[in-house]
């Protein structure tokens, strides 16, 4: 064994097989101390040294215990770990002393055992424990898991993962199947919101226990929302704010008059309601007010009468569900609430109340939906609950009794298509969008509510089926027919995708065969046309495909021969549970690795405390299952690993000081099963903040630490979270300061926007290949070259967080932001080893991608991790003329492994009309999406060329498109800047874009801030970007209940949005500016004292503290209104913004006033000047 080259290697001093090497190292029983140069571990953080000294008996066991250990591990060790034979006695004396100075390293055997190589001792002392379980390796549970998970049985899987109530609801008694002829479709594992209908029906039919009861009862769960005090818990939004709040479906609920009526009909259980339905669907969609009074107001009453015993059906199902583990596959809506299925992280809350989620969802839906419509009636809440419920029951329409179905057409999609073909004349809405607006004269173009996405000009049915605009948005809702027409319009054509959004309602389909086009592999979607019962025509490549046998059966209606009623064909956003065909390897477990900077700078900033605390709180909520694994690496000038193997009494720290060639000290106990080693992980997290308090190490070896992380993770893939506080200064990937502070406000070329080295990019590509995503948290007060560091996240599909001048004491607001962000970060959903493919109708092609990912092919994005907060954008071009088609479709399919180890495919399909007139193109322009895409393009241009270029390009985009519009309306020559109504905000947004940190020149901007702003543009969701670019300004010192929203129990006032101009501010008022990630509350100098005392809790303006970050809870009505408004704003997005109080006379107000983008600053034009500039350019 003592091969010369091998012997002195770390293995010698290090590990659990002392005997073979002991031969070469005479003194110690369990390993040579002095031959262990580059690595040693500090067992239990110094404080535990006495432990080792005082327990000689423990060590005495070693010789006897060691041999078996050796037998077990020897081979592994020699093969896997020690590629470090060169580590001879280079630094023999140094190693032991390295991190354990107080140690008695010079003493004879006993102490050397205990000490120098504390590693030796600790490791070997651990080994006896390992002899018990024969293979305490890294995959204890995995083998079994893979085996059992292969069948991918939906109900089985869910129940197996500790989610009994849901799965119970979901699994329908297998006995019920006997009621139905086709045995191969045994059950509909529907659950709470989406699936209650079918499942409870099944139980009713199969058992006759509840009779007709369940149907109305399950319907009534939603309308009960206002009555039930919202017991939900599941999405109470404190712990998971965004899942419900952000993603509550406004457009669905708004645009579904037909289904509102459908609910009516179900609630009545009266058949002839079809007529009623037709009436409803004739009404224009999007007329929110018009729909609801009729549909909604009678409904609550009727529904209220039909509210018997949801618990009964639930418990019944639960009882039966226990038996029904044999369900194999069926196309069926499974719990639409994804979190319900995923939600191991909330076992406590969501399992309490199975019927809860629909309620919450219904009530949540009210928020974004109604936000723009202040004049809603008190009855609004109920109606919105109803209508949002109707979304859920959309695909359960077929569950109406047969009489109803006879009324409907057999192949609705065909009709839809022809209707769409015929009905392409411009409706009023589009004419309005074309109305010319003279921007020089109309000052008040800013709507007083948030700008809504334009609705494509499609037939009602298609509109209803179309994808939600916050998941999938196109810059032009009318696609030009040819590239020439597009060039004429001078508007960018592109898609903005937010594929992994938190959705409250999502049909999940488990099916043996996922129906796809045989030629282009498109997933079947609502926009395909059924030629007859057995054939469908792909809407992307126009190939005619067969309908597979399984697809003929509709699990919702339990009827045969209605493929067009299947959920896949009814919903444009669906999720499939994929079979093993879609796996390259068994689904990976959730693996989280934390790489923490512990240099002096980091300790000084004090982020460790916040981080460890937050992680401790959320340890149980980390998405994952029983296989979840975690690991920790800390680094300063050396790299410290932590052995958390189950069975150890304490975590062990292993230090690798050789940063030039990093290796893993022990391969299988660094990433440990969270469940098994939870105590150790907690110990470590408790100890970490205090471990490095006295460190004097100022260097940071980020590159080597990342390499170590890569090595550690490469076998599984997963998520690496890197926390870095300074410029990496050692080892591979070291960076030098490139920023010249004197150039911060230069109007000339801004340099160094690109990476300084390609180390991080290469590493990211390697990571991406091994399905590892690196999320970067940069908490730095000084320049840290984010431009280079960000590459590691950019190309590995990670996310980037930046907290400039973070300090836990001196900057409490930043610390609070960090804490809140971490909470969201730890608990948000995550998808592993994902790929996303974007397909589009023949003739269109994808041109450029924007976002954090690696482009693997012309239409395929490789995403090591996908998170619900990242957005992607693509630019499209039109290769072939689209003259022979009236509709184009885009389909984004995201294939990922859920944190529960299921392979899933989420499919979004968007359908848009094609137009041949330039006017129509302008009418369909979506100014927000255009601005967002333009921001992405500008960032690319700034990096590849320079900032001035990109500014010019952005201005030219406005000038070109407006002059193109002018040419279409050349009949009247009018002075001023004429814009179509749809683009009236375009110049304003572009001006705002130019004043952003990312693109501005002339104003002092730190390079890191600028680069971070650019990164945000590339991957933040559209709403967030729009708030960053053009913040919303509200006056809040005179909030009234007029037009307020009712959300849950609280009343949320809806003040109008004001223009971002100082002329809108008064010293007598208090104004709130919502910039997406920050809220500024500006309190004027002579603001009403009652407001200051009632809301802020201070006697007068002078006494207001600057550093408060939330409004105190006071018992006054104005305080309540303000708080509910601010809370509403905060909960409406995934990352809670922090509130800053800005007083009239402080330096913080510079920030605030810089955001008043309509005003002139020393370096940039005012809005009016900008318009003049545009006018000049146009008339040139």
């Amino acid at each position: 064994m003592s091969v010369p080259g091998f012997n002195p290697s770390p293995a010698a001093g290090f590990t659990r097989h002392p005997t073979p090497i002991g031969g070469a190292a005479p003194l110690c029983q369990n390993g040579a101390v002095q031959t262990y140069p580059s690595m040693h571990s500090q067992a239990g953080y110094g404080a535990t040294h006495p432990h080792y000294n005082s327990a000689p008996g423990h060590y005495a066991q070693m010789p006897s215990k060691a041999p078996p250990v050796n037998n077990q591990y020897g081979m592994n060790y020699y093969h896997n770990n020690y590629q470090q034979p060169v580590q001879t006695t280079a630094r023999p004396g140094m190693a032991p002393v390295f991190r354990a100075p107080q140690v008695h390293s010079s003493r004879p055997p006993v102490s050397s055992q205990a000490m120098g190589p504390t590693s030796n001792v600790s490791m070997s002392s651990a080994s006896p424990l390992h002899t018990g379980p024969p293979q305490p390796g890294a995959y204890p549970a995995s083998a079994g898991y893979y085996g059992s998970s292969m069948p991918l049985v939906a109900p089985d899987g869910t129940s197996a993962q500790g989610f009994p109530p849901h799965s119970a609801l979901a699994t329908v008694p297998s006995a019920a199947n006997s009621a139905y002829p086709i045995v191969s479709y045994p059950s509909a594992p529907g659950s709470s919101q989406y699936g209650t209908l079918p499942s409870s029906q099944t139980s009713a039919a199969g058992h006759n226990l509840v009779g007709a009861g369940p149907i109305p009862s399950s319907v009534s769960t939603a309308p009960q929302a206002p009555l039930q005090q919202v017991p939900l818990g599941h999405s109470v939004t404190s712990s998971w704010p965004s899942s419900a709040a952000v993603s509550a479906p406004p457009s669905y609920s708004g645009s579904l008059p037909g289904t509102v009526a459908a609910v009516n009909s179900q609630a009545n259980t009266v058949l002839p309601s079809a007529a009623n339905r037709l009436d409803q669907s004739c009404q224009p969609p999007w007329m929110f007010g018009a729909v609801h009074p009729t549909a909604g107001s009678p409904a609550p009453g009727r529904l209220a009468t039909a509210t018997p015993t949801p618990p009964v059906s639930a418990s019944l199902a639960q009882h039966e569900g226990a038996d029904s583990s044999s369900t194999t596959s069926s196309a069926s809506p499974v719990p639409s609430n994804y979190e319900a299925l995923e939600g191991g992280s909330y076992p406590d809350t969501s399992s309490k109340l199975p019927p809860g989620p629909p309620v919450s969802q219904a009530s949540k839906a009210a928020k974004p939906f109604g936000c723009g419509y202040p004049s809603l009636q008190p009855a609004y809440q109920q109606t919105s609950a109803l209508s949002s419920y109707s979304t859920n029951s959309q695909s359960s329409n077929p569950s109406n009794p047969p009489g109803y179905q006879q009324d409907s057409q057999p192949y609705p999609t065909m009709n839809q298509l022809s209707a769409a073909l015929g009905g392409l004349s411009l409706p009023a809405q589009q004419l309005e969008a074309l109305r010319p607006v003279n921007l020089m004269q109309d000052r008040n173009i800013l709507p007083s509510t948030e700008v809504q996405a334009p609705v494509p000009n499609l037939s009602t049915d298609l509109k209803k089926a179309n994808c939600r605009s916050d998941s999938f948005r196109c810059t032009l809702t009318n696609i030009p027919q040819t590239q020439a027409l597009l060039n004429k319009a001078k508007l960018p054509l592109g898609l903005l995708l937010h594929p992994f959004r938190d959705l409250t309602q999502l049909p999940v389909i488990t099916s043996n065969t996922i129906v796809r086009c045989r030629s282009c592999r498109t997933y079947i979607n609502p926009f395909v046309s059924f030629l007859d019962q057995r054939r469908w025509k792909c809407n992307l490549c126009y190939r005619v495909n067969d309908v597979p046998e399984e697809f003929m059966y509709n699990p919702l209606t339990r009827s045969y021969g209605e493929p067009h009623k299947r959920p896949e064909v009814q919903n444009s956003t669906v999720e499939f549970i994929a079979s093993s065909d879609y796996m390259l390897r068994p689904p990976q477990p959730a693996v989280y690795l934390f790489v923490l900077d512990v240099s002096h700078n980091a300790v000084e900033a004090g982020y460790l405390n916040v981080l460890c605390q937050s992680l401790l709180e959320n340890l149980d909520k980390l998405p994952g299952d029983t296989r979840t694994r975690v690991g920790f690496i800390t680094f300063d000038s050396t790299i410290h690993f932590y052995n958390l193997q189950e069975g150890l009494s304490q975590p062990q720290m292993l230090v690798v000081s050789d940063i030039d060639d990093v290796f893993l000290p022990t391969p299988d106990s660094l990433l440990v099963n969270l469940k098994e080693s939870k105590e150790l992980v907690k110990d470590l997290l408790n100890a970490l903040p205090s471990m490095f308090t006295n460190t004097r190490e100022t260097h940071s070896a980020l590159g080597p630490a990342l390499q170590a992380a890569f090595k550690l993770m490469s076998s599984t893939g997963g998520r690496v979270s890197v926390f870095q506080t300074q410029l990496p200064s050692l080892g591979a990937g070291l960076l030098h300061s490139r920023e010249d502070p004197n150039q911060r406000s230069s109007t000339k070329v801004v340099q160094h926007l690109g990476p300084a080295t390609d180390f991080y990019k290469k590493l990211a590509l390697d990571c991406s290949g091994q399905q590892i995503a690196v999320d970067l948290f940069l908490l730095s007060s000084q320049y840290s070259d984010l431009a280079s560091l960000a590459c590691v996240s950019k190309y590995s599909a990670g996310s980037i967080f930046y907290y400039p001048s973070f300090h836990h004491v001196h900057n409490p607001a930043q610390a609070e932001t960090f804490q809140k962000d971490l909470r969201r970060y730890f608990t948000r959903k995550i998808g592993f080893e994902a790929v996303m493919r974007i397909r589009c109708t023949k003739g269109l092609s994808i041109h450029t991608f924007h976002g954090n990912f690696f482009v693997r092919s012309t239409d395929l994005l490789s995403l090591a991790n996908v998170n619900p907060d990242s957005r992607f954008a693509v630019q499209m071009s039109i290769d072939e003329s689209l003259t022979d088609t009236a509709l184009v479709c885009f389909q984004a399919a995201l294939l990922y492994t859920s944190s529960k180890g299921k392979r899933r495919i989420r499919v979004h399909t968007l359908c848009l009309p094609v137009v041949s007139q330039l006017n129509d193109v302008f009418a369909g322009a979506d100014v927000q999406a255009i601005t967002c895409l333009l921001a992405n393009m500008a960032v690319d241009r700034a990096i590849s060329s320079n900032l001035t270029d990109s500014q010019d390009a952005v201005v030219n985009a406005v000038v070109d498109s407006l002059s193109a519009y002018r040419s279409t309306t050349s009949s009247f020559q009018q002075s001023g800047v004429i814009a179509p109504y749809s683009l009236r905000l375009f110049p304003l947004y572009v001006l705002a874009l130019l004043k952003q940190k990312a693109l501005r020149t002339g104003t002092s901007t730190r390079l890191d801030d600028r680069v971070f702003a650019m990164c945000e543009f590339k991957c933040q969701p559209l709403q967030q970007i729009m708030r960053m670019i053009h913040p919303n300004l509200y006056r809040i010192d005179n909030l009234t209940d007029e037009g307020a929203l009712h959300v849950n129990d609280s009343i949320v006032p809806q003040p109008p949005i004001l223009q971002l101009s100082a002329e809108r501010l008064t010293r007598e008022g208090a104004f709130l500016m919502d910039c997406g990630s920050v809220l500024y509350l500006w309190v004027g100098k002579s603001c009403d004292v009652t407001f200051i005392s009632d809301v802020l809790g201070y006697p007068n303006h002078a006494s207001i503290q600057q550093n408060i970050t939330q409004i105190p809870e006071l018992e006054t009505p104005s305080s309540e209104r303000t708080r509910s408004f601010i809370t509403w704003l905060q909960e409406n997005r995934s990352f809670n913004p922090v509130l800053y109080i800005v007083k009239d006379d402080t330096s913080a107000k510079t920030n605030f006033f810089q955001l008043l983008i309509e005003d002139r600053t020393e370096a940039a034009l005012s809005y009016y000047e900008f318009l003049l500039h545009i006018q000049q350019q146009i008339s040139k």
Partner: protein
Amino acid sequence: MAFTFAAFCYMLSLVLCAALIFFVIWQVIAFDELRTDFKNPIDQGNPTRAVRRDRASLCVRVCMRISVCLVVPEYSIHGLFCLMFMCALEWVTLGLNIPLLFYHLWRYFHRPADGSEVMYDPVSMMDADILNYCQKESWCKLGFYLLSFFYYLYSMVYTLVSY
């Protein structure tokens, strides 16, 4: 009939030009592979095929391969040509090659990332613009090298005969 240095240069460049043509053809194929690979419905009958093929790093590999194995030798060979023709005082031939030489120098010093030896950046390679550009570039070069191959052949004979 005299075997001058110029004649030797032409003979050598003839051989090397064949190698260049070979390299460029290789590039053309590689780009084409990148472009069309995933568009093809690989196995129409079998949905699993498309997913199963482990192409995780195809793009990275292709880019690295092109950059390291093809582009660098190509540039250096072409540089060698120019040097040889300069030494051989073949000004006309040199003049024909100078534009390409400058183009190569420009390409080399405008590489994607700083400090990277990779000529074709795998992360932006799949952008349609860049891919198109690269493809066009390699086709143009192929034409150029083919023409110059015959030109060298002619010149070689000419120099051999004329002296």
